[in-house]
């Protein structure tokens, strides 16, 4: 598609904002470190206090990068779901994909006690949690898609997604009922969402998966755009519908599964951010929307994380609470102001 007008102004402003927020995010915390010294630490200056170096390099920098990766991944997932289902209310959460990821993790953490306690003493590596989460989200998403092929009605698909959500929630309650307090606590803390649990190794795994997902999403720009005309037109344009649908679902479950695994189920970003991007860029062309949504998602999660820090305090609020606290009003405001949300 021809983009006709250029969007470089929006992109430059958002990228600038992203850089500023990134620096701001690293600067805030319970220990105040001058921005000048932060730069020196990142650039490898050895003369800075070791405690400051530790704070920046092992805590704040990985957390800020996690925020960017997760904001980007979840937002792109939401965009893909909205286009695939041609429904502006679609997102990883609404369709039960995140519940699937939660179920996977719950089965791993809680199931170990419920089913005989073989793993009772082991703590789970981020790898096994990531795999459990990805399998869970992929399975639920596949189930939603099989159901979607049968009903064809978008409203029913959303309801089916919600039903899968409550279904998995029920299984999780049963598992919790039979689990040890320590396991329940581990699961609940995972479900609060956190951007700060990743070391550099885990971060590189997350970064790898996210980058693969994002790169693949760029490869399906063409079918995504054709879906804007509906599936029949897309087919008449020579698009392989089934293959594109499977690709979209695979990318979404990869991105949602990986992010949910490492940071817990983070609400609202996937649903709200694509709409913010569509509002700023006023386009539906995925060639613009994918990078736009990616940057906007990174910005939104950096902001949420900075708020969750409660600057100058020791306390860190669960990131999940913050995203919902701000996400829900944003969606309501968008609906009231624009009266319409676009696919």
């Amino acid at each position, binding site marked *: *598609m021809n983009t006709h007008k250029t969007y470089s102004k929006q992109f430059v402003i958002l990228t600038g904002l992203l850089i500023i927020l990134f620096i701001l995010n690293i600067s805030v915390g319970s220990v105040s470190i001058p921005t000048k010294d932060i730069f020196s630490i990142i650039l490898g200056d050895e003369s800075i206090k070791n405690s400051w170096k530790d704070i920046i390099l092992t805590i704040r920098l990985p957390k800020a990068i996690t925020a960017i990766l997760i904001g980007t991944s979840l937002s792109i997932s939401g965009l893909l779901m909205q286009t695939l289902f041609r429904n502006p209310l679609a997102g990883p959460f609404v369709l039960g994909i995140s519940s699937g990821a939660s179920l996977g993790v719950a089965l791993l953490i809680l199931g170990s006690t419920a089913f005989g306690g073989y793993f009772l003493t082991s703590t789970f590596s981020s790898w096994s949690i990531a795999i459990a989460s990805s399998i869970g989200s992929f399975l639920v998403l596949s189930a939603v898609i099989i159901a979607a092929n049968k009903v064809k009605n978008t409203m029913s698909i959303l309801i089916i997604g919600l039903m899968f959500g409550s279904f998995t929630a029920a299984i999780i309650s049963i598992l919790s009922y039979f689990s040890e307090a320590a396991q329940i606590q581990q699961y609940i803390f995972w479900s609060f969402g956190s951007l700060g649990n990743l070391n550099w190794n885990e971060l590189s795994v997350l970064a790898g998966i996210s980058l693969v997902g994002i790169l693949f999403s760029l490869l399906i720009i*063409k079918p995504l755009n054709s879906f804007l005309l509906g599936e029949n037109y897309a087919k008449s344009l020579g698009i*392989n519908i089934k293959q594109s649908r499977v690709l979209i679902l695979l990318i979404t479950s990869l991105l949602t599964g990986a992010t949910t695994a490492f940071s817990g189920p983070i609400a609202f970003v996937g649903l709200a951010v694509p709409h913010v991007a569509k509002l700023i860029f006023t386009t539906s062309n995925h060639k613009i929307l994918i990078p736009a949504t990616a940057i906007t998602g990174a910005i939104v999660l950096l902001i949420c994380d900075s708020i969750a820090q409660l600057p100058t305090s020791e306390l860190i609020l669960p990131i999940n609470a913050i995203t919902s606290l701000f996400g829900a009003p944003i969606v309501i405001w968008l609906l009231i102001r624009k009266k319409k949300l676009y696919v």
Partner: protein
Amino acid sequence: MNKTTIHSIIKTKDLSIGYQQKKQQLIVAKNINITINQATFTALIGKNGVGKSTLLRTLTKVQQPLSGNVYLKNKSISAYSHKELATELSLVLTDGLPESQLTVFELIALGRQPYTNWIDKLQANDISKINWAIEQTEITHLKDKKFYELSDGQLQRVMIARALAQDTEIIILDEPTAHLDMHHTYKIFLLLKKLVATTGKTILISTHQINLALELVDELIVMKSNSIASGRTQDIIESNALETLFPKDILRFNKTLQQFTVNKKN
């Protein structure tokens, strides 16, 4: 048409259409042997529920035939991949578009997808085809608008432009004047007629505007529950195929006027 030789472009042979429901076949129509000729404006007419949409869906490979075959340019349509088909025939459907922020230009540009690369980059040739389609359908003034700002008549011309930009020999339109007033209905019919004359494309529509079709199209396909006939409009009229199209209690075909008229109360 003053062509000396007429070539068929779509042909069906003993075609049976309908739906396969597990072990049971739901036959909508059978023994369909029709021909659509190159560079003609053809209208498919028939009463509601007789299977016009099913026939169009089968002709365009959206749906599989129950038996028999559809030939496009003497090659069975099942031998075409969807990608190949996209360069042979383009569609204007009755499906509503999802609510997106596509502009008219972008929407028409999507018609170039069979020719663009993986990232949908428009080359000079694509842009000139799009602009040509925009000129042909006289929508230059609309090109930067969002498609949801358009009236039904304008949107229909945009969808026709999109089909034109797809650069196919055949364009098939399912009830292109369904929601349009009389003025815009004429406008669409005249536009399609002009396109056939100036571009040599083959255009097939399904329509309920039978009087208008009788006046403007080159050929008719008359679909009735037990028979289907195709041919030049005059030949169809001569063959008395239209007399039994509808029950005679309300409408009657008037051969002198070559129109359907409402029965006068006695």
